[in-house]
């Protein structure tokens, strides 16, 4: 069930100044249709708790134009980074892709793995083609 009422994007005003802060995803949306809010909140809190502040959103579902949409409030992200908030790996990856952070090593690893898989598949396809050609020639 959706959380009602939705927490305001400017935050709930309840901030624990001594707790460790993280910039992380919070899953909204419904079954089979994820949608993420990018929020800053205390590290010990569960994702269903009211966040300190919303910093953006991430729609992981590809849209008509073959895009994944990410929104960042860079001003507030800079503020919270300055206050010592730490982004989670996935958020850091997105910030890297946006050109705000250096590219996250995990992004490079993923890209490399995908390339390797693509090459493998391409090689397999090529082999299969050659085999079929040979088969047609022999017959």
């Amino acid at each position, binding site marked *: *069930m*959706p959380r009602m009422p939705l927490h305001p994007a400017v935050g709930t005003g309840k901030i624990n100044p001594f707790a460790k802060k993280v910039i992380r995803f919070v899953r909204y949306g419904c079954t089979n249709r994820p949608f993420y809010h990018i929020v800053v909140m205390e590290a010990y809190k569960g994702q269903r708790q009211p966040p300190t502040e919303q910093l953006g959103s991430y729609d992981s579902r590809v849209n*008509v134009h073959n895009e994944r949409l990410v929104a960042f409030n860079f001003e507030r992200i800079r503020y919270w980074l300055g206050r010592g908030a730490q982004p989670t790996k996935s958020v850091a990856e997105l910030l890297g892709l946006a050109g705000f952070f250096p590219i996250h090593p995990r992004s490079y690893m993923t890209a490399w793995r995908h390339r390797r898989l693509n090459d493998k598949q391409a090689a397999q396809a090529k082999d299969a083609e050659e085999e079929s050609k040979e088969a047609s020639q022999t017959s």
Partner: protein
Amino acid sequence: MASRLLRAFGLISNPLKKTTNNNNGLICQQAGMVLNLLTSHVPVTNIVRSTSFFNKLPAESLWKGVTSVSNAGRKRGRARAIGKKGIKNLNRGQVIGIGKINMQWPGLTSPILRGRELIQQHKLPEDPEREAKLIQLRDSMTGFKKTKLSPIERGWTGDKMGGRSIGPPDPIGEDTFEGFDTRVLEFKIVTNMTGNMGRKRRTSAFVITGNGNGLAGFALGKALDSRAALKTAKNRAAQKLIYINMYNNHTVLHDFYCQFGKTKIFVTKQYEGFGLVCHRAIKTCCEVIGIKDLHAKVEGSTNLQHIIKAFFIGLLQQKSHQELAEKKKLHLVEFRKENDYFPTLIASPSKVRTENYVSTTEIRDFKQYVLGGKIMLEKRKLPPFFVKQKSWMIRQRKQEYLRNQDKVRLRMLAEHGELRSFLTDKYPEAKPRLMNFKSKRSAEAEAE
């Protein structure tokens, strides 16, 4: 066993009673008691009374008993039931021997001898009008027959007279009331006690007549007969016509407050297309006068005659814009939302006061001025009771997913001409569908 024996004795002891099963009876007499004991226990006797309610009384009084109510019953209000159920004497008009097939029965429907000739029983040509005549006779038996009115002719509620139209007033000499329409506002029975007659009943009719173009009049008519009451009221109303000024032929000149006795009315001027939002009697009045847009709130007593009188007083006490400006010695300026609150000068007095001559204590606000300083009570609309319940919260949460569904559907239809999205090609099994069982059924029927 004892009871069986007893029954058997009873059978023997009452031999006079008629036995229905003759065969059985014969066996009884011939074979005697022993055989009778051995027979099955099917009831063998049936008590038949030769005299009954039906053959004691003649047909006429039997029918009377069904179709009419005694005087005592009439007093207790049972006669109403007879009229409602429409019980008719079906025997009227029927003659023994004459039926659907037109047979001639000598001795019954015709003499046996005609001159010296013996009449034979034979079939005559059928009478096609017989059935229709019978039905007509039966229909004529019911005294009052309700005619079904069309929804337009119908009044405010049910078969009551209130709000119903009774046509234009009767012409006086050569003056006809063309384009006039009369509507009944109140129709009731009134009584008074007299010395020698006791309770004397009369019908009272309160009607309004008008031409829908500013001319209208209302009157009260009383008579013993309801028709006469309506007629007198109608013709009296025609004698009391009043001309009422309107704004652009659609609404009142300005807001006003009016009062008659304890009945107070707040009338608000409205924009074109607003309609009549008011008491039904005021609505009928407005329709007859020709006012199309108006809001009115009745406070205090809702005595109908008082409402009408108060409303007419208010209408007559309206002032034209020029008069208002002249009285106040200030410009009267109109602001309309559709014109983006552009100040339109409506009336200017011959001599305008300057700021120095406008007292700080006088009423400058137009609405307050025309309402005579009265304020309409606007009740706060409270939220419905169920919004406090937990189930409402749960429902709201469930509905949250569907909040944009209709818009998405519209967008899909606008873009693709059907319910589909760009994902439908990839996942055809998840094609969006309307939950419309009727269409589903028709689709199945088509497939078959």
